[in-house]
């Protein structure tokens, strides 16, 4: 199991379309992926779960990945968030 802290840096935060992109990416991997804020944790493969985090810009997320392809999964997910979900 590996984990990393990533800051939400896009203006709109983890809104519906951004959450959908994150979930689509997470679903490409066999590993279990969870994403957490200070208050809550969600399955990164569930769009409704990710949306309940209500993570605005500058929220710190802990991405936790567990499984055979965890390294690649974590790197790709971190890159997606840092690249502002390709929005800006």
């Amino acid at each position: 199991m590996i984990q990393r802290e990533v800051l939400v840096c896009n203006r709109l935060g983890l809104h519906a379309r951004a959450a959908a992109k994150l979930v689509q990416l997470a679903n490409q991997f066999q590993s279990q992926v969870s994403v957490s804020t200070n208050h809550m944790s969600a399955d990164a493969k569930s769009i409704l779960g990710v949306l309940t985090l209500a993570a605005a810009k500058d929220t710190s997320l802990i991405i936790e990945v567990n499984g055979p392809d965890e390294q690649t999964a974590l790197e790709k997910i971190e890159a997606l968030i840092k690249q502002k979900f390709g929005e800006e």
Partner: protein
Amino acid sequence: MLGMMVVSHGTLAREFVDVAFRILGEEDPAVVALCIDWNADSASAKEQIKKALRKIQEGSDGVLILTDLFGGTPTNLAMTFYQAGKVEILTGVNLPMLIKAFSLRKTATPLVEVVHTLREKGQSAMVSVSEVLNPEEGEGA
């Protein structure tokens, strides 16, 4: 795979389906939006549902019909096609429910179970912001 149809008053069904496509970033031609025109008579509206249903039923493991309002004409008409376990109807469609439905229809989950899950998801996705921001103050804060 389950066939799926959203039936509503006005153009609500089309909008619901389009918004869900937009969020998910992909279109699913197998999901049908059926908008019952305000001026349509019930016989032609029923025929419209029947035609769409026949098309969707081909090669599907069952059909899920999501409607806007229990007691409304679109629901009442859809209900005439109800077949336990084969054509199931869930009313009060909302966006979280619809998004969940898009993913569930592609799994091997039985139709009745899908309806049960969607009902729960649709309800639990209603969130009072007040309760999220002030959890210690309780409901209605």
